[in-house]
């Protein structure tokens, strides 16, 4: 479980944020998705825009993923169940997160961006997902929580990947 001590917003350090993101990445790579869910606020969102519209608003633009908390919960339950065939047997993933930047703080919201490379390995094929994360983090009960999590792919198309079947 990612435990990050409460800090004053003014003094929140990049290292604190990095520790949090690395813990999150470990939970996802280890398929500890129930624990990952606990990192999210009750109103959390998870988005992956279409590759040709990286700035697209999911209300007006077709995305790849635009989950509210209900759908995130369902997605996780599916991935931990048996019938999400694209991840049963589960793929191996390995996330490299870097270039973490605390962009600004507005009220309680901490705006963070980071670069990612996620490797997905399955059936002796390796697919590489490259892009950047945009997070909105808040502090709840002494811990950092994710209110919004957007994975913006630099890939021009999901080729040859064909899918985003795990939590990117």
């Amino acid at each position, binding site marked *: 479980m990612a435990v990050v001590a409460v800090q004053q917003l003014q003094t929140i350090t990049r290292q604190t944020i990095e520790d949090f993101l690395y813990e999150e990445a470990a939970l996802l790579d280890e398929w500890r998705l129930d624990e990952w869910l606990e990192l999210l606020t009750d109103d959390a969102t998870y988005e992956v825009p*279409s*590759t040709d*519209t990286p700035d697209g608003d*999911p209300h007006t633009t077709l995305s790849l993923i635009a989950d509210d908390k209900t759908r995130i919960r369902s997605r996780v339950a599916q991935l931990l169940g048996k019938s*999400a065939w694209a991840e049963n047997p589960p793929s191996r993933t390995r996330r490299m997160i870097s270039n973490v930047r605390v962009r600004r703080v507005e009220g309680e919201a901490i705006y963070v961006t980071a670069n990612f490379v996620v490797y997905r390995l399955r059936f002796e094929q390796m697919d590489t997902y490259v892009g950047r994360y945009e997070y909105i983090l808040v502090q709840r009960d002494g811990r950092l929580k994710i209110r919004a999590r957007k994975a913006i792919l630099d890939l021009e*198309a999901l080729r040859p*990947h064909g*899918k985003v*079947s795990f939590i990117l």
Partner: protein
Amino acid sequence: MHDVASEILISDNVADGLFRVNRRVFTDPHILELEAQRVFEQCWIYAGHESEIPQAGDFRTRYVAGRPVILTRGSDGEIRVLLNTCTHRGSLVCRQPSGNTKSFQCPYHAWTYSNHGELIGIPGEDAYSEAFDRRELALATPPRLERYRGFIFISFNPTIDGLVEYLAGAKEYLDLVCDQSEAGMEIVGGTQLYSMRANWKLLVENSLDGYHAPVTHQRYFEFLVEMGVDSRAMRRTGAGKSLRNGHAVIESAPAPGGRPIAAWAPHFGKARKAELEAIQRQLEDRFGAERAYRMTQTNRNLLIFPNLIINDIMAITVRTFFPRTPDYMDITAWALAPVDERAEHRAMRLDNFLTFLGPGGFATPDDVEMLEACQMGFANREVQWSDISRGMQREHPLPNDELQMRAFWRQWHELITLSPPVQIPARRVTAV
């Protein structure tokens, strides 16, 4: 060219109710080359939608039937498809995904073309002989381009039937989509660009396959139950139909995942219910109760031969795909929606699209998985045939039968071998 007549590719045994497809059609590079020549260069091929290039000068580049093309609306308002290769030495003349321009200038030697495709500028033109005629060097175009209700098709076959005649029974099903708004339908921004490590014809089958839904998409139906959908709504009835010329459709009702046009589902939220009922009444006024019911309450998965799928289901997706190799295809999927849809309604539509459709949805990734698993299975060359016999002797085939796939395969066979499939006795097919 490899002789395809020497091996039976499809066994169509109507008397015994058995239909078998030789798995070689999914793996053989010679078949892929024949498909390029006899299917993709002979048929009408979907190139795009008028709403993607609404203003004079708008363009989009893409691959159609393996060719880089420019879909443009010229300064004269005319829609064209230009083959994206400089007539001088070959370079792409347009390397942007989309934009608005009066001209395309080749980046190699600056030959310049109008947005009609005419060659209008050659640096140092005085170096060319009198026989050199720039009018002959316009950007090339496919020999045929026709449109039907906003859908733009091209053909490399100059003598092909007109588009409406080609569409045959599929025209009625396109109308059921296009009539959903008096203001017209449009492609929504945002394109799902993905792929499968599988033969393109497996996606034709899969897009029209009611049989796989409760198994492959079990998790989607569980999601609907979580959302409060009555599980009785998942027992669907309907039909699978051939629409001639290889086109086919499955139709079914009720639509448990909801239909943004006017079939409410619990996950749309109560606030949307009255609005959907109002749209239902408007469509009943325009088209009568029966046709309005089909438009709003029944799901349709439509194939326009060979590779255009219009699934009017949890939302409307327009999907096309082209093979690169026997075991790999590129897929492009768009959302189609009424032009005059209110913002909240559009947001609901796009949200419902994503519950099921696309490479991050709760269904499509599992389709990708299944088709890739089929392609892997084909390496077992000892198992020569796939079975597409389901419902072959049923008087009125159901959407979870396979008549609609047989309609595709019969047309495919006729184009590839220039003859209808043979009927061989059951014993010979099943023996390996």
